[in-house]
């Protein structure tokens, strides 16, 4: 049973420098209780993809395709219907909790807000729920801490409070955008552990957006590798790490410290000026003549492993 199913998603927005093609025809499925990792370099459109699901992009953005949440196309809902999905059915955990939390409202106010909004609780009852949530994410003396402001929390605590905010109404799907970026490595491990435990417990599906392969390996069932605007490889986590097929995925994995720390040649292309043919061909060590002209399709190579490369087509 799929919770979220994305079909042919395109997200474009115009800037002074030209049209940014952030997402160019993405298909993805996330099943019940599944954690799907969306990995890729900075600027490959993965955050835009995450935001487009909850329709949080600015009004001048063009979004095409289908985003089906339990069979319902989110792109066709009214703004008011969409508000009932946000925070209740699908929640989002943002990176950088310092800027993502309101500096002038107490943590308690911010964590209790979803309860007031979606469960119609009174302020005091919602605050009790918020205290429970903070306890769940292991913030010590939560009944004191709810009265504090985000700047009085440490980085790890803020991120855990963000998680509490996201999980408040027990959503079916969580979109976590780089939830561990900017945290100390030891704190990162704690946060990852916590997310794993909480999503397991509440049987929540998750779309984890990250460039950190370690975090992805720890949390994800399946992984989709994104290269400017499209998915280039999809498989389960073990398969991706053991048997990467796409030259980009191979390069990405080889650049890991544990795997030789080999830097990848070249730069990721700008989303304004994408190359013709296969978008990876200018950096690809195996590029064929055909790669410059034709755009490869996603090919199934068995074991539910798909790759977008002419080497396998």
């Amino acid at each position: 049973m799929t919770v979220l199913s994305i079909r042919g998603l395109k997200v474009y927005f115009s800037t002074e420098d030209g049209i940014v093609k952030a997402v160019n025809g993405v298909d993805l499925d996330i099943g019940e209780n599944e954690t799907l990792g969306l990995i890729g370099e900075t600027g490959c459109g993965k955050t835009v993809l995450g935001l487009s699901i909850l329709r949080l992009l600015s009004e001048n953005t063009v979004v095409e395709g289908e985003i089906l949440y339990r069979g319902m196309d989110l792109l066709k809902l009214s703004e008011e219907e969409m508000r009932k999905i946000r925070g209740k059915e699908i929640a989002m955990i943002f990176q950088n909790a310092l800027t993502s939390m309101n500096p002038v409202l107490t943590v308690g106010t911010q964590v209790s807000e979803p309860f007031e909004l979606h469960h119609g609780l009174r302020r005091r009852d919602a605050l009790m729920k918020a205290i429970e949530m903070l306890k769940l994410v292991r913030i010590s003396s939560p009944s004191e801490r709810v009265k504090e402001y985000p700047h009085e929390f440490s980085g790890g605590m803020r991120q855990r409070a963000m998680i509490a905010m996201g999980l408040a109404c027990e959503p079916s799907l969580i979109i976590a955008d780089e939830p561990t970026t900017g945290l100390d490595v030891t704190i990162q491990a704690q946060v990852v552990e916590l997310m794993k435990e909480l999503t397991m417990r509440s049987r929540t599906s998750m779309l984890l957006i990250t460039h950190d392969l370690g975090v992805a390996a720890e949390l994800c069932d399946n992984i989709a590798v994104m290269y400017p605007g499209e998915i280039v490889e999809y498989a389960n986590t073990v398969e991706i790490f053991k048997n990467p097929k796409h030259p980009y995925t191979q390069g990405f994995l080889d650049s890991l410290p544990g795997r030789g720390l080999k830097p990848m040649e070249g730069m990721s292309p700008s989303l304004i000026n994408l190359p013709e043919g296969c978008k990876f061909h200018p950096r690809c060590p195996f590029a064929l003549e055909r790669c410059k002209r034709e755009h490869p399709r996603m090919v199934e190579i068995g074991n539910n492993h798909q790759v977008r490369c002419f080497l396998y087509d």
Partner: protein
Amino acid sequence: MKRYIAKRLLLLIPIMLGASMLSYSILYLAPGDPAELMLERQLQGVPTQEQIEAFKEEHGLNAPIPIQFANWLYRILHGDFGISLRTEKPVLTEYLNRFPASLVLFLMSQTLSIAIAIPLGIISAVKHNSEIDHLSRFVAMIGVSVPNFWLGLLLILFFAVYLGWLPAFGYGGFAHLILPALALGVSGCASIMRLMRASLLDVLNQDYIRTARAKGLCERAIIVKHALKNALIPVVTVIGLHIGHLISGMVIIETIFAWPGVGRFLVESIHARDFPVIQGFVLLIAMIFVFSNLIVDISYTYLDPRIRYE
């Protein structure tokens, strides 16, 4: 917090000392011999050398300047601001008599400009690039640029002379208050409105507003609960700074509208080279500045929990 306020009040001492030095030096920085100038005014003619000497002796102007200053300061600390040379009444009494009229005008124009600027700024930001936004920005642009004395004259011409709806000048009921309050408040109103708009627009682009949207809050709740308090922080600073502008504006507006306040009294005294009155005014202004800054600083702690004074 109490300790902070106490500390700030203690700081008043050196500030007021500096301001009083400055205000006392007006007597000597102004061109001409003060005794001669004052006598000229009193006698309506050129005084003789003997008269000047006698005047200097009488007012202690022969002593070294630091001694004169110390004596002056001693008298001020005892509530004696001297006698106005023009009206021959105590300066303090003259100010206290005129202060209520100025306060009424100040409060009216400040309330009016804030009450118009804040909602208009919010609407402009929420519906930015709409017609109402363009219109209010255009009007605000004019409001910032127009000098208040000219605006005052135009208001008199239009509402008092041409339409005859409101009195042109003088002190009386509420109707008398409207035109001077408008003339005084327009430029502050326009700049507060523009800042409110810019500040709210900036806040609406912050990450935490996106978080609030992701929770499923409606636009109204996002603006009222999440954005407004953040956006008001710079606006409060500017409202505080504008108090100074407003006081200098009052000097002009009170003169144009014949408003019997402190500002007009100052202008009359400057014309008459009434030094004790001018010195008193400088001290008064310094005091108002220090207190309005203190109030702004304290109000920050209510708006922004990150600001705490120890």
